[in-house]
């Protein structure tokens, strides 16, 4: 995004105190409830979590579906972001709004919309059912579809925004060197927006991992095939709050490990910069 991004060592200007103060408030605001949650968890029961198969099954399903959903969002979302950012498509404001709406829709309603389209009596679900015998609801693919539906906009918007701020002259240079549009995209543009893609993927994955409403509405809740960890957590809240808290913390720990292990990579800070 930079014609000549310099990487000089530099004197960092001191961050003004009000900024630091507000940032500290923000961190406390996030950390305190999480801490309170962790404190409330009955850690003595933590052994049950791993002996019981249900949470493990749900966790595995969650990880599997959220990763696949993220991959699908990448495959569909990148091209969409590209078209929105780089073409002069007349209706692109409308298209962009349509593709952002699922973020706003209450997830349960998003699930209803999916049923209306892909359910047994749905707009095209009926044909899928009648002609090919394909029934999406109550299957693991339905979980993935629900996650993609609500989570993909995060990728699209993040990447589109980054695509707008890339330096087009660098792409021009690549073109005059004989690079086909494909090569330019693959070797120049996408690497330039890599941080945005990574952070879009993290947002998407996080949203998919935490997805509950659309999943439960469109895919239902069957252990092993559609009961993801958030669904299991929700149910546990009905009967066994302690187990619910334990499962939430499990989800938190998994995400935490993933996020911390990515270090600065997904935000665009260059690897080992001091």
């Amino acid at each position, binding site marked *: 995004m930079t*014609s000549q991004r310099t990487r000089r060592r530099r004197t960092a200007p001191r961050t003004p105190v009000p900024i630091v103060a507000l940032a500290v408030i923000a961190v406390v605001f996030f950390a305190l409830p999480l801490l309170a949650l962790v404190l409330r968890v009955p850690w003595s029961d933590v052994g049950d979590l791993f002996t019981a198969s249900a949470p493990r099954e749900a966790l595995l399903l969650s990880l599997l579906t959220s990763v696949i959903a993220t991959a699908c969002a990448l495959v569909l979302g990148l091209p969409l972001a590209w078209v929105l950012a780089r073409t002069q498509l007349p209706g692109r404001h409308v298209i962009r709004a349509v593709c952002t709406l699922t973020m706003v829709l209450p997830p349960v309603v998003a699930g209803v919309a999916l049923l209306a389209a892909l359910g047994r009596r749905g707009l095209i679900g009926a044909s899928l059912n009648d002609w090919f015998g394909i029934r999406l609801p109550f299957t693991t693919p339905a979980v993935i579809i629900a996650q993609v539906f609500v989570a993909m906009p995060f990728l699209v918007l993040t990447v589109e925004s980054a695509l707008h701020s890339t330096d087009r002259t660098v792409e021009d240079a690549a073109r*005059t060197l004989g*690079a086909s549009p494909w090569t330019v995209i693959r070797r120049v543009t996408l690497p*330039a927006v890599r941080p945005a893609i990574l952070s879009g993927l993290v947002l998407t994955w996080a949203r998919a991992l935490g997805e509950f409403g659309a999943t439960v509405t469109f895919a239902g809740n069957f252990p092993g095939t559609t009961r993801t960890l958030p669904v299991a957590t929700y149910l546990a809240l009905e009967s066994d709050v302690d187990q619910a808290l334990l499962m939430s913390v499990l989800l938190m720990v998994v995400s935490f490990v993933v996020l911390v292990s990515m270090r600065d990579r997904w935000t665009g800070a260059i690897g080992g910069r001091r």
Partner: protein
Amino acid sequence: MSVHGRIIVRVGDCRIDVPIDIASGTTVALIGPNGAGKTTVLRCLAGLQPLDDGRLVGADGVWDDPGAGVFVPPQHRRVAMMFQQHALISHLNVRDNVAFGPRSRGVGTTAANQRAADVLARVGAAHLIARRVTDLSGGEAQRVALARALAADPEVLLLDEPLAALDAAARPAMRRLLAADDLPTRVIVTHDPIDALTLADQIMVIDDGALVQAGSPRELVDTPRSAYVAEILGLNPLSGVLTGDQLLIGGYPLTVGAHTVADGDVVAVVRPRSVSLHRSRPEGSPRNVWSTRVEAIERSADRVRVRLGAPLPLVVEVTEGGLAALDIGTGDEVWASVKASEIAVFPN
């Protein structure tokens, strides 16, 4: 590859209309003031900016013809452009930037890397090969940008100020490189008249989007067709009114030699070398002699330029020895003389 046609294009408020006539294998220098449209012309040639009107035809067929709806995209023109701001790919290192062209044209990685190493050595940047391009100094980046364009092995090289950021010691070698026989057709934008005069077969002078003059360096020096061309080439242009062999410049009369210009508003050009300076009024053949003041003395390594004040704001070049003999300084009074035959006039 030869390229012919006419570029007509608008950028912002600036309309560019330049005929193009580039013979295969030649070097064309594009000179002109800032904002004249030089970069824009290169972009049109490269296919980065579509013509609004006019037509561009390469040796391999029509490149751009808005009338006929023909447009060949950059990657199919076999041109390579070097950008004024370098436009290096910041996430690739130096080698990968330079190897980008060959690899885009299907050359294998090893061969492309080899080519990158060779070309980098040619531009004196072999030691930079493993560096991140974001860590380069201005001149280093320029060498890499030049190497990248060369490595692409194009049939037309478009170079936007290839030497601007290079140090003085590196320039002669780089000039020789740009003049090398094994390079293809070249279009070079430059602000250095010396580069234009020494490197180019043809010079195109562009001003305000229009072609002011095109010709060989000799032609331009001998018969600059406008004051602007004369000035840009380092000559002294003066505007005045001509009547027969009498030229009136800001009220001051000069005698000019044989010429074919009609009476009226004209521009006269005097070469810095043609003016002589004297402590006292000189006797002898020069028909134009006047007294004036030294406004400034500018020294370069081995020449001195003396800027004269009213009535004729001329720059005069003398030797160090000559200056020492004259023993003058800024503000001193001197006599200047120029022979009538040394003043060239053109219609304004």
